[in-house]
């Protein structure tokens, strides 16, 4: 009976965390994409200094969230995003705006895919 109760508790914890994790990912993805959009607006407005500052802010925010996300998501995807983010500031400093923008769009897609890939949908399960 004791083992049965422990099993029920463990399973309940797994189920709760399994279904609450996509909520956390959704929130984080939203915050990250908002920061990307802010950078894009500054780029469009030719506000380079503000764009650099927002990119630093975005990079710091990603590094804070990365430690938690790494526990639950395939590490290859995380490394990919981290590598791409590390290229952003140098690209902006050397005025390679087109490469910077494409890199930023690529990062946005990767971040959104983390959330989408974790939603318990039929296509993801099968």
């Amino acid at each position, binding site marked *: *009976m004791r*083992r*049965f109760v*422990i*099993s*029920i508790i*463990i*399973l309940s914890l*797994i*189920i709760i*965390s*399994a*279904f609450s*994790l*996509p909520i956390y990912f959704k929130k984080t993805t939203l915050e990250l994409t908002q920061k990307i959009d802010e950078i894009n607006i500054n780029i469009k407005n030719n506000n380079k200094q503000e764009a650099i500052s927002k990119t630093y802010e975005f990079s710091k925010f990603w590094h804070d969230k990365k430690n938690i996300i*790494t*526990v*639950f*998501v*395939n*590490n*290859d995807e995380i490394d990919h995003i981290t590598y791409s983010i590390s290229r952003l500031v140098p690209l902006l400093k050397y005025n390679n705006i087109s490469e910077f923008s494409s890199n930023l769009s690529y990062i946005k897609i990767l971040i959104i895919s983390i959330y989408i890939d*974790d*939603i*318990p949908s039929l296509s*993801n*399960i099968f």
Partner: protein
Amino acid sequence: MAIVFIRTLILYLLVLIGVRLMGKRQVSELQTSELVTTILLSNISIMPIQETSIPLFYGIVPLLSLICFEVILSFVCLKSSKTRHLISGRPKAVINNGVINQKLLLDLRLSVDDLMAQLRQQQIFDIRDVELAMLEINGTLSVYQKFNSRNITTQMLNIKDTKENNNEPQFIIISDGTIIEDNLNLCNKNKNWLDLILKSENQSLKNILLMTSDSKDNYVLIPKEIKNS
């Protein structure tokens, strides 16, 4: 994580149904659900070990889930005979009143050679000696022999149980120089008794390989051939 959990649940049910469909011959010794868990656990635990890019949680969650499924299922099976029969099946009488149930053998995909091999393992070489043979849920065969083929028992010879002829079971008291206190209690002995025996045998505890005893002071003492210094 929800995907891992759902996938684990789906795989568990699939392998469970698969092994159940494979039948008793494949199971042998382990219960169906236990076999399923064993197969899945061994494979799942390898995955995060081999692939370091996979988070450890991808291994821990299915492992914990499987163990919990197994515990919950065994508890449900214990409480519900319907579930028990659904998951583990029922024992089947492959030989009844000395007659082989050929249809059942076909259903179980158990060949006559397999049946005879299982009978031989129970020291039965003539199928005419078998009154009833049940294929248990763990795949083993339990045999009830015909009266004339059964071993003679004290009951048949009408020998009464007396203190003289009743040999009690022997418990391991010392194993490789270590006292097994639970067994010492089982045969109603204590350490003082053990010290007296060792003293009378001129032996020290660490030099005993094996000592067994019953509650009637009948003991066997085997010292080590290579003594500890």
